[in-house]
């Protein structure tokens, strides 16, 4: 047997503990979400009627199946609040991903063209804000955007506006917060593909008479598409379910799905509806999640 094969056995054994952990704390909880999304709301603690009780045996189980209720899902489909917040989440996530791409691409391009020595520094500079707390970064923007904050002061001093502008509790503040928080997630995969690109391809395009602009659209951009895809998914998926940023920066007149779920859960104490909303959100995210999983796997295991 080759050394590689002998090494594989204990490596597989090592994976047993994390495997069990993920099954117990990642997979099983989803079964609970699904189960509770199908049960009835009651005013109690916990606030739902249990759907199945495995201790009662098989007959009870089949009886329980007969009682499964799709009311919560029907509610989701018939209540405008939910449909509107799903739509809003999708629109916000799509728009933010596009803005992120537009801002992140030139930065990643610039990084890839820096002298080798400086690329490492630039990379650390992009990663560091990611390490400082997300909440703190949003709070930093609240400081700047508030009524008598720095932004309004600067705008007033430069006579661009004559009265303070309301920034907080608006969609522009929310987009700013999202773009600010997710920018590193967009830049890093883009930079990873752009920096690996063979410079001689561009030189060849140049020698063959392509203008820099044409060379960019014909060579650089198509070759960077894997990075574009990874960055876009890495931003889009979590933004759809984003809660903290819209809650702190956007107004309360239209909610994203994460906020609606939070409200159902913590304020209305309607756990079954919150669970149904979570299941629906998850279904919405399955296609991008599968795509992301494939990209990730290809990247991590591509060569082996």
């Amino acid at each position: 047997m080759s050394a590689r094969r002998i090494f594989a056995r204990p490596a597989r054994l090592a994976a047993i503990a994390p495997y069990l952990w993920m099954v117990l704390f990642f997979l099983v909880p989803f079964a609970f979400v699904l189960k509770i999304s199908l049960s009835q709301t009651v005013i109690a603690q916990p606030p739902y009627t249990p759907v199945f009780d495995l201790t009662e045996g098989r007959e009870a189980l089949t009886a329980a199946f007969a009682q499964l209720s799709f009311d919560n899902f029907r509610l989701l489909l018939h209540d405008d609040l939910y449909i509107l917040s799903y739509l809003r989440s999708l629109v916000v996530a799509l728009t933010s991903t596009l803005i992120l791409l537009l801002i992140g691409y030139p930065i990643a391009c610039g990084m890839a063209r820096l002298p080798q020595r400086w690329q490492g520094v630039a990379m650390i500079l992009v990663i560091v804000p990611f390490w400082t707390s997300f909440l703190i970064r949003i709070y930093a923007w609240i400081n700047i955007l508030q009524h008598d904050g720095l932004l309004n002061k600067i705008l007033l001093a430069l006579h661009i506006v004559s009265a303070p502008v309301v920034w907080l509790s608006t969609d522009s503040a929310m987009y700013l917060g999202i773009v600010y928080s997710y920018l590193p997630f967009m830049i890093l995969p883009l930079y990873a593909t752009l920096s690996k690109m063979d410079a001689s391809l561009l030189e060849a395009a140049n020698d063959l008479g392509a203008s820099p602009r044409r060379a960019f659209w014909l060579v650089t951009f198509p070759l960077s598409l894997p990075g574009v895809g990874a960055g876009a998914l890495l931003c889009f998926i979590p933004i759809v379910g984003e809660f903290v940023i819209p809650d702190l920066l956007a107004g309360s007149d239209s909610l994203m799905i994460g906020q609606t779920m939070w409200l159902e859960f913590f304020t209305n104490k309607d756990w079954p509806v919150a669970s149904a909303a979570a299941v629906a959100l998850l279904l919405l995210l399955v296609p991008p999640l599968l795509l992301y999983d494939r990209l990730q796997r290809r990247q991590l295991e591509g060569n082996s």
Partner: protein
Amino acid sequence: MAHTVTRITRFNMTSLALGFAFLYLPIVILVIYSFNASRLVTVWGGWSLRWYHEFFNDRAMLEAAWMSVSVGAVSATLATLLGTLAALGLARGERFRGRALFSGMLYSPLVMPEVISGLSLLLLFVALNAERGFWTVTIAHTTLTMCFVTVIVQSRLTSLDRSLEEAAMDLGCDPVRAFLLVTLPLIVPAIVAGWMLAVTLSLDDVVIASFTTGPGSATLPIRIYSEVRLGVKPEINAICTLVIALIAVIIVAASFASKLSSSRGESAAPL
């Protein structure tokens, strides 16, 4: 000239400068205003440590900070252990039954909206009748952060030269010894980086902690969040600055440690 095409242009420089200013200015402003003597957050009243003083006399905040630091340390350590084992299984385990499920379970929490992870774990804890508090938050954070550790350690393992391990085994090491003597020293930097990232993510999380914690045991981000909802307070600027400083210390210490161990590992490798 070959280099004209890939030369850095003025447009490149401008986008880099603007990009980094955008990323850093808000944090710099936050830190500067934490030293503001004035109660009004927006009026500069001279330098002062007043708000730091206020924080160190705020019992509720201090308790929350202690809770966060202990959850962060315990969950990051657990996550590093589990994540490294998972990475080992994925990078060296070749093919095994349930591998696709395993990697799927490990990669999807990286992008899974926090509201879903938080809600699902809470429902599990309620069903298990677990008392919510320190341990439930720690378990939740371990589950989330071990995935990040796995990705970091796995990518390091995949880029390693496997012939080193194989050589050790040809020379008579059993797999466990080969791992401890050859592989482990080489992946220490990735393990340290994973631990660091796990601590930071745990110190950062509001949503999952809000779902999984019980009454009376709020973490620091939960408290900061409820204060921030009420508006800007200079004390929060001071707390945020302290958190940034703590994270900076962790990063510097850990990168120093990993540099030490990696230079040792690299010099040991050719033997």
